[in-house]
């Protein structure tokens, strides 16, 4: 199966503005950054979490703790996927109990990744609450999950894929919609 690019929906500047806005919204909604911690979901969510934390530091002059969550071991399709996904490290070096956790991912789609992440997080402790921030919400939820902070809402068809490209991993910054088709 091959994919071709259908549309570019965010460029570097749009992404930066969206992440900056999310940082502001997080501070506003939580009335400051007391007890706040940010946890990114591997792979790209981890980089986005760092960026959100950097903007919050710009605004409030305090660095909030940032962690990385690998959700591989919590997936509900481990036995169904033909190839075992590679396991990476979870790195949460602070106690999440009674913290206000902002969970960060790149794309919100079926909600299953977030379900895994919630299961994984509560194994580390009992946060005061968990909020969800995503760069793109593309719809098609299969679970009752919604985001608290959204960079951009993008209506998509099921046969399309939304790809967030980040300089840390992909050497460029953009969000594109890919469409199934013959290359």
């Amino acid at each position, binding site marked *: 199966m091959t994919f071709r690019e259908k549309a570019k929906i965010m460029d570097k500047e749009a992404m930066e503005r969206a992440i900056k806005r999310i940082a502001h919204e997080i501070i506003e909604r939580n009335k400051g950054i007391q007890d706040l911690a940010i946890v990114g979901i591997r792979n790209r969510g981890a980089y986005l979490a760092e960026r959100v934390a950097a903007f919050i530091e710009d605004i409030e002059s305090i660095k909030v703790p940032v962690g990385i969550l690998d959700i591989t071991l919590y997936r509900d399709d481990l*036995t169904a996927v033909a190839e075992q996904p590679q396991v990476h490290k979870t790195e949460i070096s602070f106690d999440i109990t009674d913290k206000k956790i902002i969970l960060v991912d790149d794309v919100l789609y079926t909600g299953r990744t977030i379900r895994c992440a919630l299961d994984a997080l509560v194994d580390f402790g009992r946060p005061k609450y968990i909020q969800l921030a995503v760069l793109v919400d593309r719809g098609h939820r299969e679970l009752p999950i919604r985001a608290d902070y959204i960079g951009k809402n993008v209506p998509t068809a099921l046969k399309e894929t939304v790809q967030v490209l980040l300089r840390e991993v992909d050497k460029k910054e953009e969000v594109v919609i890919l469409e199934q088709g013959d290359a």
Partner: protein
Amino acid sequence: MKKWQRKDLVGLENLTREEIELILSTAESFKEVSTREIKKVPALRGKTVVNLFYEPSTRTRVSFEVAAKRLSADVITIATETSSVKKGETLIDTGRNIQALKADIIVVRHNCSGAATMLARHVDISVINAGDGWHEHPTQALLDIFTLKEKYGKIEGLKVSIVGDIAHSRVARSNIWGLTKLGAKVSVCAPKMLVPVAIEQMGVRIANDIDDALKDANAVNVLRMQFERDEGTAFPQQMEYFKNFGITRERLEKAKKDIVVMHPGPLNRGIEISSAIADGANSVILEQVTNGIAIRMAVLYLVAGTKN
């Protein structure tokens, strides 16, 4: 993209360098799970792991049990003294019965070399070798290598000496396969009767004596003298062994200051290693035990993923 393809893990001899590195990097991720307050992930939920042990073992059996439980698998341990093996059931029949119970993974320890390989060939479910005769003990070697890699950051170019009963040691054989594949320089040191013929063909050097083995070594893996395997001829007296091959403070003073001392356990204090060294600053013996869980979690996870 590196992917695990093998149904079984019977030894390191047949693995590629990439496969060994995949197990090591997967184990690195699993090590963190054991540091959590809730030391459990749901990755193998609904899977059944059967520990089939034909030889006494505490450390390896418990390590596999803990590893499987931390992955949320169900674990059943069969000690053969209390099973139908006593009534004469063959290994293959036992294996097929375990498969008929719809178990997913058999962890087997057997006193015959090649037992795990044969079992793997006769069942469709995964088989992990927890030690077969004098042949291989892959997870022990992997945890030794993992521990070394944690200390030095790499294996390539390290000088590792294996001291002790090389001839009867599956730990030695698996370590030699694994370490040489990853580019370490391995030497062995033992009483002449306990050095197997043509061991050099495995790519190792035979040290002249214990001081030669320790000189320049980054690590020494001290094997347990397995007196229970003594057939009455080849084995030296215990005190004689300690005098000539025991790892003592005086001997380590002539070695590199940061030499890493490993031992697969159980320890014979005062025979192959002195207590001062076993409990000393160079010893990583208990870290090996901790790392064993991460390695076994990684292996269970990887072979479980090859179903369908």
